[in-house]
């Protein structure tokens, strides 16, 4: 599949908005939370995004934003005539009072721990995740430190 066809097909999917090309081989889209799981399934099954590079949670104050980076490693998706591997960046906005979304760890096993990390450090709940525990911080740690409203004690002055 070519990268241009992908863009056309992506525009047709319901819930996808703001499609833009931020680099030669990277598409950025916004996705609605309600249709996210269906869209992710389609991306994996039909569009050859078999690798989940990263799941980032950003605290935009007041809302949260989830950024998914998916990539195609096997070369099924071609970017024009180059050897480049295609990548897609998906933004999903979450409300602060209900930071939850469907888990994609059944699609990509690699997403499993990224989701755990997002839960651990940012407090996003992934519905349907098989094992949503803290991964980096010890059990019983209070709060989610990467949130902007997390306060901790630093003894010295700030630079």
């Amino acid at each position, binding site marked *: 599949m070519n990268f241009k066809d992908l863009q056309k097909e992506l525009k047709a999917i319901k819930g996808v908005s703001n499609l833009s090309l931020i680099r030669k081989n990277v598409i950025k889209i916004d996705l609605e939370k309600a249709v996210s799981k269906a869209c992710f399934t389609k991306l994996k099954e039909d569009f050859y995004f078999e690798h989940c590079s990263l799941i980032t949670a950003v605290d935009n104050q007041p809302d949260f934003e989830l950024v998914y980076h998916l990539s195609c490693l096997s070369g099924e998706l071609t970017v024009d005539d180059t050897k480049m591997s295609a990548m897609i960046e998906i933004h999903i906005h979450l409300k602060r009072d209900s930071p939850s979304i469907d888990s994609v760890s059944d699609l990509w096993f690699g997403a499993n721990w990224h989701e755990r990390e997002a839960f651990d450090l940012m407090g996003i709940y992934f519905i349907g995740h098989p094992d949503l525990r803290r991964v980096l*911080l*010890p059990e019983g*740690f209070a709060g989610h*430190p990467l949130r902007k409203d*997390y306060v*901790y004690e*630093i003894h*010295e002055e700030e630079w």
Partner: protein
Amino acid sequence: MDMSSKGIRGNPELRRGLGSKTTDREKIMEDGPAGDWLALRSDQLLKWIDDAVYNASEATGMREVVDRVTRPIFNFAQRFSPHPLHFGIMCCAIEMGQASAPDHDIDRLGLVYRSSPRQCDVLIVNGPVCEKLRPKLKTLYEQMPEPKWVIAMGECAISGGPYWDSYSVVAGADTFMPVDVYIPGCPVRPEALMHGFLTLQKKIREKEPGMFLRRD
């Protein structure tokens, strides 16, 4: 000879190894041997022999002589054979490994890395100690047999280093365990690690007498 004085009778803790169930002298005497007064329980016998040997050596001045001869020998052995724990935390652990590589060859100083804390003398804390790691590191320290020493290797282990404003890094290893030698550097070079071990030698020789017949 005053048998009840604490100084002469020594530290009851140390005598636990000799098989006595209790170390309290009065208690042993209270529930004394049943029946024949000549009979001694085995632990009482051992205790009696132990005390007799110790008191005799103390009274005759033998203890001083033995101590004076053996203490330097044991001290010599302790300081020339430091076996560190094979334990890496972060960057300095790589330099610790690099120090045993042929270019620096820390084995010249007699260092053998042992993987089990039971067989080690030196714990090298070579990186930042995080909150999650702290209890484990403390356990490792407690698992090591006496006498033991701790080397804080690198800025992170000394004070938290570059992670001074982190929410999960402890501000230095000396906040929760005794540290003998601090080696600054980020990361510590292998040469500096060797110097740290020589400093430890110096410290052992000057501060810590070897132990023999030392009850208190």
